[in-house]
């Protein structure tokens, strides 16, 4: 049963991108275990404001696991200790009375810290702008049954498309590699007939942008897929490798 717990929260505080960061520990009493993790941070911020202190800056938006904004490294895991969820879907029942919870921002050179737990994830947007779209003129809306797509293929494309671009993969990777993100974005289009036409060009452009932005080289540790809130599979990385190598050998 959910009950009330007293906890300590050890949070990374950093005034700005260039400022020196440090950990600060706050005590929080009487937190309901049915509360979400972000609600707990809200309560902590209320407490800080009441004490006339600077509240903790953190990213959040939809709070239902679909926008990909929340980005906290909780007790050594991006999005916390539970699997296949975002930070906003994490609840306080995963923590016990008297526990010290360590909260850090994503740490990767391509994701510089803006303030406290907020990081700049525009690098992912830039990769998307490099080719993560379909530029085929599809004309009017075609009949839904005009292009038949096998169910397993459609399922795999949809699973790849479930990526919300939160950055947990690159944050968890010891190599700071964005391959799971890029491969999901390449796969969701490469699997479907409309996206196949530009598949080779897309793979080359997105990988080139990824390398340019300073992401690392994938060594298939699998930490990304293990921490991904949407359980995007490593099989996508193999598809990206295949698409890219085939495209390069054809050149």
């Amino acid at each position, binding site marked *: 049963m959910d009950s009330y717990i007293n906890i300590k929260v050890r949070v990374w505080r950093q005034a700005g991108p260039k400022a020196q960061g440090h950990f600060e520990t706050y005590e929080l009493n009487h937190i309901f275990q049915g509360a979400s993790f972000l609600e707990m941070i809200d309560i902590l911020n209320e407490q800080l404001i009441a004490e006339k202190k600077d509240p903790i800056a953190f990213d959040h938006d939809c709070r239902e696991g679909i926008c990909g904004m929340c980005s906290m490294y909780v007790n050594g895991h991006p999005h916390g200790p539970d699997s296949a969820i975002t930070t906003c879907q994490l609840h306080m029942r995963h923590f016990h009375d008297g526990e010290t919870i360590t909260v850090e921002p994503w*740490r990767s050179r391509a994701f510089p810290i803006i303030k406290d737990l907020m990081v700049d994830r525009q690098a992912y947007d830039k990769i998307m702008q490099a080719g993560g779209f379909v530029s085929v003129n599809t004309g009017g809306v075609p009949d839904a049954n005009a292009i038949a797509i096998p169910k397993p293929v459609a399922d795999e494309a949809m699973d790849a498309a479930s990526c919300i671009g939160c950055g947990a993969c690159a944050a968890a990777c010891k190599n700071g*590699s964005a391959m799971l993100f890029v491969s999901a974005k390449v796969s969701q289009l490469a699997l479907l007939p409309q996206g196949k036409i530009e598949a080779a060009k897309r793979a080359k452009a997105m990988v080139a942008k990824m390398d340019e932005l300073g992401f690392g080289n994938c060594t298939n540790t699998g930490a990304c897929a293990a921490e991904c809130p949407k359980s995007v599979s490593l099989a996508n990385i193999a598809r990206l490798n295949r698409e890219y190598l085939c495209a390069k050998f054809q050149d």
Partner: protein
Amino acid sequence: MWLKDSSIGRKFIMSITGLFLVLFLLFHGSMNLCLVIDDLFGTQGYNWICAMLGANWYAIIGTLVLALGVVVHFCYAIYLTIQNRAARGNDRYAVEARQEGVQWASKNMLVLGIIVIGFLVLHLINFWWKMQFAELTGIHTSMFDPQDGSAIVKGLFTNGWCGIIFCLLYMVWLAALWFHLSHGVWSALQTLGWSNLIWLKRIKVIGIIFATLAVGLFMIVVVYFLGVNIGQMIN
């Protein structure tokens, strides 16, 4: 050149050289097995292979290609690691938890690789120096005849306490090699794109089988001579 300038190109080089070295290991391991067979049945298989691979041009070219494979694999490993550490940035996480299903070996490939390379140097001094090198240059580097490879191996491993120490050192080497291959083989296949939702699980199993087979072939020889050596010491 995309093989140097793109991340997937660099990984492609790592996987190709890695797989090439695994194939060599399988050949070398099979050849070593002859040592045990020779010792048990009194045949001369190992020395016959040694003679064939002695100091002819094919063997020299083969050795050079092999050395090139090791050098490229090693240099790219260093290059990739430097880049990856830079990509990670200077700020480390205060708390780093283990992820479920992530192999320990996969996060320590460079360390394991350096252990393997370190022992490789010892191995070359132990055997290659006394066999192919001695044969090529005509310099006597040991008390053994460079043509009699079998005697050189037996001489090292069945030499009392010294033999036991070398057996144990080789076992540490082989253990590091097993861990390196347990991630390396499937990772190479994944990098080449030979994986999907179904084959991802299969290539991981294939990798473990390959690693066990390759390392097992070497291990049999070491364990056999360790047994022979201890037997001799007791008697």
